[in-house]
């Protein structure tokens, strides 16, 4: 049974007043709140188990190494991949940079890279830079005016341009729209394109089975999945991953070093230079344990119920324009009210203890595509309830009255 009140009680940050009002946290797309088990895993690591990993024969170091590698296994299981295909990075952004940099020698001025206008800047800029370094062409998949892909058009576009690389989001960070990846990845694969999926937003809500998804690379961010900040991950199909040039060099990633020459270790170690973020990795495993202790279907159903409830209420307010697709959405509502600036709405909402984000959401090409400068984004997660929606809508109505 999915008990929302029990779940809310697991998140200490939700139990506070902001500006004298109970916090209504609707900014999970930026970062999720953390369950107590994640916070105590961090504390316990530093209070008791702190030691460096993969070196030192003392007991603490061995325990730390074991917990660290066990955590890799826990996260790998979540995505149904093997632990050797999972590289720790400091975030999804670094994971994309790792791939884009590692592909430099594999592309040339005959190559084409395809991305889309729906992407977060993190899935645009590294590819722009790669195109600049190699002379490759950078193209964007056609996006419909409503911010959704027409799959047939996308497939045709891919067949026409025969990309070497295709990088696309699993779900839009600004709109929450879920990409229908299957046909797009299949089309890319027919041309032997290297495919990367940005899972920063989707990895929490959709709990994807990566081999089934069929991409070569998938990136995610721990702090958007109930875990700590400063940690992300890169899944790579082993041969594809191993074929990337090394990103950063130094300790931990080497087999042997002489002053003349260095032999690198095998994947994933060769992409993990320096002391890793051990505490975050171990705490992230606690987040995944928390998530998998709940039924995937009931979490998803609950999130969709809250999203639909919020969407319906928001649609009922005259003058509100919603930009998010209300179907196939991970739980994000992007909207504006008449000509009002999203900054003003978000600032006033904060007075009521409602946390939303305003701005371009690191997706300026998408905002240009939608013909807006920015919007207000309310993003939901498993710990939001009906009362959050009611408080949000009531506060929003008060704010809009203040502005009218």
């Amino acid at each position, binding site marked *: 049974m999915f008990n929302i009140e029990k779940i809310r009680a697991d998140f200490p940050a939700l139990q506070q007043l902001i*500006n004298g009002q109970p916090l209504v946290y609707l900014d999970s797309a930026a970062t999720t709140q953390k369950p107590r088990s994640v916070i105590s895993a961090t504390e316990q690591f530093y209070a008791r188990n702190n030691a460096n990993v993969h070196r030192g024969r003392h007991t603490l170091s061995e325990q730390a190494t074991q917990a660290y590698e066990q955590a890799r296994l826990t996260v790998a299981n979540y995505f149904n991949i093997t632990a050797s295909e999972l590289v720790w990075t400091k975030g999804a952004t670094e994971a994309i940079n790792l791939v884009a940099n590692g592909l430099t020698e594999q592309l040339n001025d005959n190559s084409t890279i395809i991305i889309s206008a729906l992407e977060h800047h993190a899935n645009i800029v590294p590819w722009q830079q790669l195109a600049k370094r190699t002379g490759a062409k950078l193209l964007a998949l056609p996006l419909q005016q409503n911010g959704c892909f027409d799959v047939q058009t996308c497939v045709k576009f891919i067949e026409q341009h025969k990309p070497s690389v295709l990088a696309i989001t699993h779900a839009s960070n600004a709109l929450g729209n879920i990409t229908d990846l299957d046909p797009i990845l299949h089309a890319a694969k027919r041309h032997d394109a290297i495919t990367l999926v940005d899972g920063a937003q989707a990895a929490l809500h959709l709990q994807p089975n990566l081999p089934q998804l069929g991409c070569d690379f998938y990136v995610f961010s721990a702090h958007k999945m109930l875990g700590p900040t400063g940690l992300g991950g890169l899944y790579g199909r082993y041969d594809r991953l191993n074929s990337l040039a090394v990103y950063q060099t130094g300790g931990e990633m080497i087999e042997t070093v002489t002053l003349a020459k260095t032999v690198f270790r095998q994947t994933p170690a060769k992409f993990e230079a320096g002391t890793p973020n051990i505490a975050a990795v171990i705490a992230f495993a606690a987040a995944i344990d928390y998530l998998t202790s709940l039924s995937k279907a009931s979490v998803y159903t609950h999130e969709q119920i809250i999203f639909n409830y919020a969407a319906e209420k928001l649609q009922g307010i005259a003058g509100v324009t919603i930009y998010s697709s209300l179907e196939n959405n991970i739980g994000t509502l992007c909207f504006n009210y008449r000509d*009002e*600036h999203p*900054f003003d709405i*978000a600032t006033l909402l904060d*007075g009521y203890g409602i946390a939303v984000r*305003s*701005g371009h959401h690191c997706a300026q090409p998408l905002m240009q595509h939608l013909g807006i400068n920015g919007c207000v984004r309310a993003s939901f997660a498993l710990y939001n309830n009906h009362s959050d929606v009611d408080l949000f809508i009531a506060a929003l109505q008060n704010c809009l009255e203040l*502005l009218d």
Partner: protein
Amino acid sequence: MIKTFKEIALSLENSPSWQQKYREIMLLGKQLPTMPAVLKTSEALVRGCESKVWLYLDFDLEENCLVIIGDSDTRIVKGLLAIILSLYNGLTPEQAIHTDAFTQFNHLGLIQHLSPSRGNGIKAMVERIQTMAEQKN
């Protein structure tokens, strides 16, 4: 009629609620003269992540005082801008250097708007005014 800083401070202090305070701030923004489009150059644009703020700084040599014109695309920031202008407009460089917007915003209960995380450009605006005052002093 543009209010003096004292008048603004008084009406904000007398606001019965935070909502009323914001209403006052937005009203101040509304009363601010519109900035001519020609002055909204990229140089006048103060970097703020979520809102745009333009600041045009001039110096009246005859009167030895700062002339500041500003605008914003958001109502709240424009209102805060009006407060900043009421603090600094027409001051001599020396007076401006001795005018601390942070202390004044603190008194008004608006200090959170000058925090670096706000991304509204207000803090950068004050810094630009102070830099100019120091150059002209």
